[in-house]
């Protein structure tokens, strides 16, 4: 227990060094520290629980194999892991698995059951709002979706996002600006057309 707490205060780079020398607790600590963000990124980007699980597994397998040669001088471990996850997501999307209408009802099990509020109406409004946001993010074109997921959902700073996406920081800013405008537009449309939205199923955009 004491050892785990000690490991929990170590930096990613320190844990990685220990992991590379065969220290299993270091690997487990590193995994537990970083896996959730990678999983959520993959889930938001792919829209698939199965793909998110596979991608998370592949990201950390690559770390175990030390295939991509992480260099602390060139960025953070977190950014490196997001970078691998992004490549795997792109590969998944390019394989065309999601080139079909996304069945929102079928995929809803991928998303959290929100805590029940005392006020059912308030709770419903809250749930609807969160769900509307999720749909709007899912329907964004890929290059806008990834900046929103990284910067707004996972709170990665612009410089780190630029490194993960392999683009200038200005591009992150402009994509984020455009992405938010698209999101506001989608949410506005949804609010206006909600009564006729019974079988609404957004198409996954692959651009």
């Amino acid at each position: 227990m004491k050892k785990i707490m000690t490991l929990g205060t170590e930096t990613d780079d320190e844990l990685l060094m220990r992991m590379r020398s065969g220290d299993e607790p270091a690997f487990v600590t590193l995994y537990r520290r970083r896996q959730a963000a990678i999983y959520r990124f993959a889930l938001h980007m792919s829209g698939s629980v199965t793909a998110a699980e596979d991608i998370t597994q592949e990201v950390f397998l690559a770390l175990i194999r030390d295939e991509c040669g992480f260099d602390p001088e060139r960025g953070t471990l977190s950014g490196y892991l997001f970078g691998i996850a992004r490549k795997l997501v792109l590969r998944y999307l390019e394989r065309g698995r999601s080139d079909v209408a996304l069945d929102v009802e079928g995929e809803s099990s991928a998303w959290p059951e929100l805590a029940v509020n005392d006020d059912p109406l308030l709770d419903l409004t809250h749930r609807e709002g969160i769900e509307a946001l999720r749909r709007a993010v899912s329907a964004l074109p890929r290059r806008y979706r990834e900046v929103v997921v990284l910067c707004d959902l996972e709170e990665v700073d612009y410089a780190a996002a630029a490194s993960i996406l392999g683009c200038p920081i200005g591009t992150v800013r402009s994509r984020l600006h455009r992405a938010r405008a698209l999101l506001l537009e989608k949410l506005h449309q949804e609010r206006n057309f909600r009564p006729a939205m019974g079988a609404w199923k957004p198409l996954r955009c692959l651009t």
Partner: protein
Amino acid sequence: MEAAKVFDMNCQEFWNTMPELGRHGDHSGHLRECIACAALWERQRSLTAGLRTAASEWSYLQAPARVEARLTAAFRSHAGLAHGREIARPWHVWGPVAAWAAAAAALVLLAMFLMSGGQPQLPRRSAPGTIELAAAQAVPDFGVSGDSPYGDDDFIPLPNAAGIAPNEDVNLVRVEVPRSAMIELGFAVSAERASEPVEAEVVLGADGLARAVRFLDE
């Protein structure tokens, strides 16, 4: 006309250097002068606040525990291969080791299996791609044919290992082992080839214990 041009430039400049919403910083100069940007800025701030709320609702989402179990097994295999020399054992201890390992965690059995070559192995780090791990469902020919409980007649049950239960979520780990490891499972291996590496796939049960093995290049 001139004023409008300057105004547009200022707006463009503002969004080109867009500060990170929700973070502190003095960027109120342009927003005080430009109603349109101020309105858009406020809408984006509200949207970002909504996204952060949604993110906190989703914050408990994480990979299932089975991913950690698979990765830990893979890590043990990898670490075992990388440190093979330090824990190499002579052949005559293979039997007791295998019996113990069947009850031990995850790939300890596999590690002992790997390390029990007749001749000491040179220390080596496994090459990229030496270990592969996949859910059984991802392996096309696995678990769909034959009478073997492992779904493929090539798999050989390990001594003292439990069987695979129906619908059990099994995993497959690909490793490289000394060819001499095949002898204990009934394969004929010449002395001169005993130290050569051979690729093998090991079936792990849902509990992470090794159940069966098959050699890919006999």
